[in-house]
């Protein structure tokens, strides 16, 4: 599936519009996305850091696209997730890269890493499971 079609799918999902991100690259096992900072993403109003839940949501969305970019009605069904928060997400774009580590008939396991402008320093890492049936 090409990036344009994937982004058309993304734009159909109300919560994905709320997150405000775009798919930047896509292949069988990976998806990369960029999210634009918005005041509604703030978790710490004093420091203006991203809300941890927004980072987790963005990673979940990118992981779901990596697993099933051609979803029909709703994105891939999430089972559970674990997120490791490594650094605060500061004002500015966030970049997520999702890597499908295993995709079977019923289950998929996806790891996601989120960075900002400094690509050496990860903001968060996540592990997501999806039910494919």
């Amino acid at each position, binding site marked *: 599936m090409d990036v344009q079609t994937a982004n058309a799918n993304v734009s*159909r*999902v*109300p*919560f*994905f*519009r*709320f*997150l405000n991100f775009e798919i930047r690259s896509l292949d069988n096992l990976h998806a990369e996305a960029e999210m634009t900072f918005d*005041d*509604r*993403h*703030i*978790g*710490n*109003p*004093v420091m203006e850091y991203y*809300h*941890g*839940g*927004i980072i*987790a*949501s*963005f990673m*979940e*969305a990118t992981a779901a696209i990596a697993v099933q970019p051609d979803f029909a*009605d*709703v*994105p891939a*069904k*999430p*089972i*559970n*997730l*674990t*997120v*490791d*928060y490594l650094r*605060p997400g500061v004002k500015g774009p966030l970049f997520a890269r999702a890597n499908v580590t295993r995709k079977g008939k019923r289950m998929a396991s996806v790891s996601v890493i989120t960075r900002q402008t400094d690509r050496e320093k990860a903001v968060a890492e996540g592990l997501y499971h999806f039910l494919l049936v």
Partner: protein
Amino acid sequence: MSDITKKKMEQIAQMWNARGKGLITHMALEIEEVSSEGVRVRMPFNPDFCVDADQTLLHGGILTALLDSVFGLANFVAIEGVSTMATLDLRVDYLRPAYSRADVIVRAHCFRKTRHIAFNSGSVWFEGHENAEIARGTASFALTRGGTDLFDAMTKGKTS
């Protein structure tokens, strides 16, 4: 046991409800109960948080965000003298599809606090369906103490 004054509770509730920006404002969270034993918070239904065209199925991520926020609140009231608090890690199980337009209720508490770390757990369900949890989460938070109290920073800092 509870060393939190009613006044502080009211201030916390007021602060949460009056924050000028950020996700919490968009979630329109309403604190229903708050004590050092735990907190209960309501999130009104919001179609922006859905994944389907009919806007009746909530995205899991918003439930994760909700748990993260409410864990923060639970720590805030359970632990005195915290100057900063950062989520270290978070695990969420999505127990059922979040299919409803009802308000979402979260109950969370801090089940262990040490000098540096707080441990939390919480449950999420649709109002009136407490026996059908839609998500359950656990998290740990890194705390720093001393310096400016987080409560003071939040209430006296730039909040709008």
